[in-house]
């Protein structure tokens, strides 16, 4: 019986592995960028299943929500109605048409020169060969890093070992990761195209779906956040799910508060960095290292960091997806004040 189960799982492993490599091959080989993007989303979902098979449930949640979901939305968003917005296209009097500005903007583009393709294939084969060789030399018997983590678990303030690593043992990584997200928002907003696309009026289906989906997504996000202390889940997965709700709501034309909406968004974006730094000061205040919090206060600090981080991560992901800052006030909704 046990061998039958093992055999079935091994077959599942082979199917998943072949699907992954097949998706990668197809998305690289196609000359259709849209098709490549859709295949990438499929690749991400397959990858989430693989994480589940490898016992990495936290990673599976992050991959499905961020790797496939938000990244897929970003990549698709980069392709929607682009040709009509181009300055070159506008100058040729092709505004509001969907004719490609150059042959490479057509759905299917021409492949690179044969010489370049051969060089790329050689480089790819060499890299894959070296990685396979290195993989065969990885020692199969070593204890890993879990024994180093074990002594920190009892007074870390959370039971999920991944949460302990992210928010206690290697909190520095996570603090800087949140700063990276903030930096990406600032950089994306700073390099935004001056002429923003006009938002499309939402269809009836989108508006109805949003009314159902947004509360459900926020509920799931809250659940993932709360469970993250003891089980797979946490701020990043929760933030990504809530960001999905935010993107959906924005598409459906949900309005910000008349006053202070943009300011609240900006405050929310930096909140996690500030709160994390504040929590990090708890250690130095007690004569311990920066970002060092153990024992009684750890649980509360981790909870506060995770709640605020969820908010900031969700806002950052929506902000990067929007690609430009929110309008400041009703009188100055034009993009000109943002770009000088």
């Amino acid at each position, binding site marked *: 019986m046990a061998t039958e189960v093992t055999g079935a799982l*091994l077959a599942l*492993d082979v199917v998943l592995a072949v699907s992954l490599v097949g998706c*990668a091959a197809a*998305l*690289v080989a196609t000359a259709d*960028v849209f098709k490549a*993007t859709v295949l990438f989303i499929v690749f*991400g979902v397959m990858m989430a299943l693989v*994480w589940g098979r*490898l*016992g990495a449930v*936290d*990673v599976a949640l992050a991959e499905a929500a961020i790797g496939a979901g938000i*990244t897929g939305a*970003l*990549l698709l968003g980069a392709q929607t109605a682009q040709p009509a917005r*181009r*300055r070159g296209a506008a100058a040729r009097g092709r505004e509001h048409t969907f004719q490609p500005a*150059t042959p*490479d*903007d057509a759905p299917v*583009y*021409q*492949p*690179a*020169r044969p010489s370049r393709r051969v060089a790329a*294939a050689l*480089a*790819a084969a060499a890299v894959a*060969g070296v990685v*396979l060789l290195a*993989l065969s030399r990885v020692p*199969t018997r070593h204890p*890993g*890093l*879990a024994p180093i983590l074990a002594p920190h678990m009892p007074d870390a303030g959370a039971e999920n070992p*991944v949460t302990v*690593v*992210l928010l206690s043992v290697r909190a520095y990584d996570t603090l800087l*990761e949140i700063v990276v*997200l903030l930096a990406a928002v600032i950089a*994306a907003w700073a390099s*935004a*195209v001056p002429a923003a696309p*006009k*938002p499309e009026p939402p269809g009836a289906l989108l508006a109805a779906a949003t009314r159902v989906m947004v509360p459900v997504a926020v509920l799931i996000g809250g659940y993932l956040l709360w469970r993250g202390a003891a089980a797979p889940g946490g701020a990043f997965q929760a933030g990504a799910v809530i960001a999905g709700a935010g993107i959906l*709501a924005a598409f459906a034309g949900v*309005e*910000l508060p*008349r006053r202070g*909406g943009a300011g609240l968004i900006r405050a929310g974006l930096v909140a996690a960095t500030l709160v994390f730094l504040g929590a990090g000061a708890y250690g130095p205040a007690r004569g311990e290292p920066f970002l060092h919090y153990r024992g009684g206060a750890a649980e509360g600090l981790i909870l506060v960091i995770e709640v605020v981080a969820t908010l900031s991560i969700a806002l*950052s*992901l929506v902000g*990067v997806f*929007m*690609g430009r*800052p929110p*309008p400041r006030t009703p009188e100055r*909704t034009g*993009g000109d004040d943002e770009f000088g």
Partner: protein
Amino acid sequence: MSSVEIYGAAAALSFGLAVYGAIAARPVIHKLVSLNVMGASVFLLLVAASARPPAAPDPVPHAMVITGIVVTVAATGYAVALIRRMEWERGSGVLPEDAAPGGAASEQPGGGGRERGEGGAPEAENAAEGPTEEGRSPWPGPPRG
């Protein structure tokens, strides 16, 4: 053969395929998709190489991979912003060194210099467009007027 070896090999192969895509694809957005596959393959390799079934999974690589996934989406978001800006500035989503395989004439009837010519006076064109209806932010905002 174990599941660890199967996924390790899959990670190595998809990494190699993505290296090919990142070099051979011409639109920058397609290169970006390939780069994302490269990243995901590295994460898979890291977790597969650290897995020692039937022992419990090692949480430290898992946390590193979650950090990596978030940093990747941040970098991808910025890259998308840069690609949009490049398309707006140049009128093309293809880098100059990747343009027109096998001669410009075969692909662009108007000649390869067409985009450059139009991009010659960005400031003037920018001013001419001015704060039109196009300048509205896609963020949901209060109704105007």
